[in-house]
């Protein structure tokens, strides 16, 4: 069945049992964004230490694709440097636009999102959490720069 291409077990599991779905009061980085197309919204919280993301969480509401992508993201990016997260984010975007063949080792469970390529209108759902994190990181670096 073609629906299996998009609604893979991993995606449904993260949707029904989201990881790190909680507010993180006092987090160094907090950023929210919604997808005006469908009203999905995601807030990402992140704490960084020595240039690495120590802990990442999210809250929000939306479809299975946006919420599972957020859940997988929080698990994958924890412990990575900002540079590594930026590279992974670019590769996730590349995978979702069909331009990048995912490296299974680097992607882990995120490979499950590959099927979304066949549903162009849903790509926005899958990248929402990544957009939020990227904007949070760039705001974090600009406020750090402003502090200097």
């Amino acid at each position: 069945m073609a629906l299996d291409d998009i609604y893979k077990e991993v995606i449904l599991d993260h949707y029904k049992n989201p990881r790190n779905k909680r507010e993180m009061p006092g987090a160094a980085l907090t950023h929210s964004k919604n997808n005006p197309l469908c009203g999905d919204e995601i807030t990402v919280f992140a704490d960084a230490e020595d240039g690495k993301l120590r802990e990442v969480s999210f809250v929000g509401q939306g479809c299975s694709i946006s919420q599972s992508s957020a859940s997988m993201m929080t698990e994958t990016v924890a412990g990575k440097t900002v540079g590594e997260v930026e590279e992974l984010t670019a590769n996730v975007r590349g995978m979702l636009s069909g331009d990048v063949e995912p490296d299974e080792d680097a992607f882990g469970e995120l490979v499950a999102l590959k099927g979304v390529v066949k549903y162009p209108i849903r790509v926005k759902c899958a990248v929402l959490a990544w957009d939020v994190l990227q904007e949070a990181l760039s705001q974090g670096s600009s406020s750090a720069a402003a502090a200097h």
Partner: protein
Amino acid sequence: MAVTEQRKAGLDVERIRADFPILSRTVGDKPLVYLDSAATSQKPRAVIDAEREFYERHNANVHRGIYMLSEEATELYEEARVKLASFIGATDPATVIFNRGTTESINAIAHGWGRKFLKEGDEILLTDMEHHSNIVPWQLAARATGATLRYLPITDDGLIDLSTLESSLTDRTKVFAVTGMSNSLGTLTPVHLLADAAHAVGAVLVVDGAQLVPHVPVDVRVLDCDFLTISGHKMLGPTASGGFYAKRELLEEMDPFIGGGHMIHEVYREYSTWNDVPGKFEGGTMNIAQEVGLAAAVDYLQALGMQNVRAHEEEIAAYAIERLQDAGARIVGPVDVSKRGGAVSFVYRDVHPHDVATVLNEEGIAVRAGHHCNQLVMRRFNVAATTRASFYVYNTRREVDALVNALGKADDVFGA
């Protein structure tokens, strides 16, 4: 059973379906079930043929050339105006302005009438069930003039809350802009009553007719609205066809919206004078072939009879609401079909509308999922989005059954 009921309603739906070439296509290996006519309707062969014949035999610019082709094109274009005027009960065809449809029309009205006559202290009254295209142009006009916006709320049943009408409509209200039929809730609004209330305080009534005109018999003399917008592509016509009706004196006193060729009488270095109505509002080369196609759509709908169209949609909306509710869906909007049209919004258990739409698409079913350009409505009913199935002359009970059966597949995927 279904056939008998449709006969009673006066539409031979199987015969109608044969007139729409697209309805015989498939999506993957499934027959197309098109339930998104509130977004845009499908087109009968007569409309497609009319547009093609215009290009093949009569294409020329209108109101310009002193040659036979241009005269033919002009005649067809103006004949379309006469037909559309007659369709909505306007006795003077010049009171029907052509443009791309409702969004352009409301912008033309908010700009050409609103910015000319609104001033600080004036109020614009809207309702919480307006489409963004009947909100944003008024926000722009308010910002430009210093007028303020007020809104009538929505009842729990999905109707306009008329208990606040008297307190909201005051001598400060200069314009009351309201939908004739909500595109998300499906609600029919009491246009005639609202027109009387607006006129009692000296305000003009603008009716967003995008969903009303395609589905319900409309007579502007009975409604007594001051403006009525028309989206041709939602009533079997080509995209970018339609326009708006306005009372003649309003068209005379308001400003044009688009400046350019044809809309002028004389041009001087510092100023220009305007062409007569309706030319004043039709600057530049218009959507000629599209309005000619719309004339064929009007012919088609009139042959069916708008009373029959309405009866069919009432019947199919009632069936859809009943079956969706039985399947565990929550209807967002009125459930009394005498108060609503055929755009049925629902929330299915806790499955997100985007996921519902993706599952339905696999079964060949086209629905809309999202906020439907109705973010105020979504907030009112505390949902981020809904799934909307919307029906028209070519839809059948069998397609409602297909919709409900396909919702069961969402249970399989999401374990709802």
